[in-house]
């Protein structure tokens, strides 16, 4: 099979999401599947070996939740990078760059800048104040049972949103990459993740993250060296070739539509490096930026990583390493994305996966020698296996965060009143991991075919609007107290969720219908025009035959065939639109009963973050809590010096 043909088949398979012919819904041809399984097997075996070693070291509850505090700054830096470079950022951003050029790269910047917040305000105090969970940080000077309950609920909420997006995204990805069924992919991801978490706890999760991050960076460096090296590692030279590529120029022309008519190919190519191909509403992007920059510092699975290092200095060092790795990686994605656009072509990438997620794997296949070479498929299999490991590792981190909130905050902190032995708590933590893991698999299967992309944005929005304000103000505002923490968590979480429920992220049947009807109308017009063309050309051909004249240019059989093909294509588009209207059924309102969005922002951060902060302020001022103020000085000293923090377990 040729590359294009295979891509088309892959695209058809991916589009017909539940097609029963998995053989076509994949990027690797059947005859090379053994390579995929071999590489997947090798990477899974490596992580399993690590889990086996880790399991022998996981004896106490501190080992399970926080790897006994025995992780070094450098190791933790790689692990944070591993947690953060989820499939969404690895495959997603490379895809966005390949499809939208500059705007995709601009999108990646916020993910790194977010770490400035983590470094400057969160990492060190968290390590000094907290023990295993975010609830521990809040409980230091507030009513422990109350704040732990609310913080645990918020942790589980954020982790579940993130988890759902990862499970569904992972299921689709594995299905596209190696062609196994969606349900089996989800269950495989779930079982592997449970094995890491249950047996190896935080030690195994940390090492799986480190291995995965190293593999990811290695694969990316290799690909960038191959694609950039051809142009002598010259940045202008390389980008100059990218924008000279007709596939890139065609993509820009398609995105711009009518506006592209008067542009030369050079202008079209240069446009790829200019803003505005993806983001049309700047306010939306600013709102997303706020959620990223403040939300990262409120993500439970990221904060949890700071409990694994022995000192605040190591916590700081780990953020610095993480920033170097994450930032360096995002610079590499510029080359991965633009390289895939030039070598594979945006149209071919979008044909396999509309979101562009296959840009990096397809580039790997190309660089290794193409779809029909052993090396190409080996390289593709390697990148696919790294992507798979990425999903499993990120899911493991999330499950651990949610399970520790459930067992450490709710069961031990609230129900047992902090009276549980290490063995009891370890057992509780494992039981909670099984519960959360089973929940993740169930949700993953139930959410099959749903659009879950906005769930990651929602997780960041809740983290930024609820978790971040309460942690920040508990650490830095003397008057903050239990009333403020509860108000902030409740208002922040509900505001973010409510605003998303009434935002354009939801499906609005009437709007979909109107858009599809417009498509049908355009296609009807095109069909009518082509029909009149067909009549005109047929008449001209007959007239020419009758008078024995040669056929005029543009009025011959070729033109006739072209017009007929145009009719067929328009009919097909029209049928697709009609199908979409039929799919809507009789519903006229969104999930919450709205005909059109009440709130125009896709990301609620711009409104819900200030609301969260306001709630903490008001709640703290209206509620009197002597303990919170008395504890302030102790907290201040401890967050800055670490005095009183339990010494790390020796390993």
């Amino acid at each position, binding site marked *: 099979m040729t590359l294009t043909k295979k891509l088309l088949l892959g695209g058809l398979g991916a589009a017909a999401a539940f097609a029963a012919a998995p053989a076509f819904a994949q990027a690797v041809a059947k005859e090379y599947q053994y390579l995929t399984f071999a590489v997947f097997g090798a990477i899974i075996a490596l992580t399993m070996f690590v889990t086996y070693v880790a399991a022998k070291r996981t004896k106490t509850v501190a080992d399970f939740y926080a790897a006994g505090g025995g992780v070094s700054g450098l190791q933790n830096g790689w692990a944070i990078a591993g947690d953060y470079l989820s499939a969404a950022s690895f495959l997603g951003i490379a895809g966005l760059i390949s499809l939208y050029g500059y705007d995709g790269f601009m999108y990646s910047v916020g993910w790194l*800048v977010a770490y400035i917040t983590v470094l400057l305000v969160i990492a060190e105090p968290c390590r000094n104040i907290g023990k295993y969970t975010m609830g521990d940080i809040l409980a230091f000077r507030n009513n422990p049972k109350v704040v732990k309950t609310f913080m645990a609920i918020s942790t589980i909420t954020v982790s579940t949103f993130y988890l759902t997006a990862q499970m569904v995204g992972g299921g689709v990805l594995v299905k596209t990459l190696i062609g196994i069924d969606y349900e089996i992919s989800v269950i495989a991801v779930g079982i592997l993740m449970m094995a890491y978490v249950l047996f190896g706890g935080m030690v195994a999760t940390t090492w799986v993250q480190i291995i995965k991050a190293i593999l990811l960076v290695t694969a990316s460096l290799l690909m960038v060296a191959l694609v950039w090296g051809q142009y002598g590692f010259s940045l202008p030279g390389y980008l100059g070739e990218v924008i000279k590529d007709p596939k890139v120029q065609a993509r820009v022309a398609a995105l711009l539509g009518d506006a592209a008519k008067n542009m030369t190919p050079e202008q079209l190519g240069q446009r790829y490096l*200019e803003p505005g191909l993806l983001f049309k509403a*700047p306010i939306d992007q600013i709102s997303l930026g706020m959620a990223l920059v403040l939300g990262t510092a409120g993500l439970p699975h990221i904060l949890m990583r700071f409990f694994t290092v022995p000192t605040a200095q190591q916590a700081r060092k780990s953020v610095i390493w993480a920033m170097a790795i994450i930032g360096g990686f995002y610079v590499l994605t510029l080359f991965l994305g633009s390289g895939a656009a030039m070598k594979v072509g945006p149209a071919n990438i979008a044909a396999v996966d509309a979101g562009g997620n296959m840009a990096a794997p397809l580039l790997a296949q190309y660089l290794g020698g193409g779809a029909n070479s052993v090396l190409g498929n080996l390289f593709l299999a390697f990148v696919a296996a790294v992507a798979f490991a990425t999903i499993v590792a990120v899911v493991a981190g999330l499950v651990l965060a949610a399970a520790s909130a459930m067992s450490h905050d709710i069961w031990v902190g609230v129900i047992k009143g902090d009276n549980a032995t290490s063995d009891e708590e370890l057992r509780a933590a494992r039981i909670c991991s099984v519960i959360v893991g089973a929940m993740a698999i169930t949700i993953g299967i139930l959410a099959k075919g749903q659009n879950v992309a906005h769930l990651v944005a929602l997780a960041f929005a809740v983290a930024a609007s609820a978790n971040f304000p309460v942690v920040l103000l508990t650490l830095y505002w003397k008057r903050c107290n239990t009333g403020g923490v509860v108000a902030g968590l409740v208002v922040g979480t509900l505001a973010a969720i409510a605003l998303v429920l009434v935002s354009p992220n939801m499906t609005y049947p009437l709007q979909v219908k109107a858009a599809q009807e417009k498509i049908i109308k355009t296609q009807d017009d095109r069909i009518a025009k082509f029909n009149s063309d067909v009549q005109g050309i047929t008449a001209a051909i007959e007239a020419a035959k009758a008078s024995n004249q040669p056929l005029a240019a543009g009025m011959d059989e070729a033109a006739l065939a072209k017009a007929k093909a145009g009719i067929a294509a328009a009919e097909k588009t029209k049928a697709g639109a009609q199908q979409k209207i039929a799919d809507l059924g009789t519903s006229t309102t969104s999930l919450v009963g709205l005909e059109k969005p009440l709130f125009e922002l896709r990301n609620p951060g711009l409104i819900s973050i200030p609301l969260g902060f306001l709630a903490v302020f008001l709640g703290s001022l209206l509620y009197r809590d002597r303990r919170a103020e008395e504890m302030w000085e102790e907290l201040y000293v401890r967050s800055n010096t670490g005095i009183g923090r339990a010494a790390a377990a020796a390993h």
Partner: protein
Amino acid sequence: MVFAIIYYFLLPIGAAYFPELYKIKVWGPINVGLLFALSQFIVAWGIAWYYARRASQFDSMADAIARDAQKIGGKR
């Protein structure tokens, strides 16, 4: 922190309201917008490096306080 956030938000705001500025070519096909986006990485790393240097000075102060606290017999 404030500088980092303002610098970051200038990027999308600039892209939205001053696209012409971003389109000025500087080095071959490389334009102002691309350089500005790349500079975000440099600035973020610069801030991190500067903070790490300053913080290591505070480390020794914190250690001294912690030692003193232990001497007077404060909590562990």
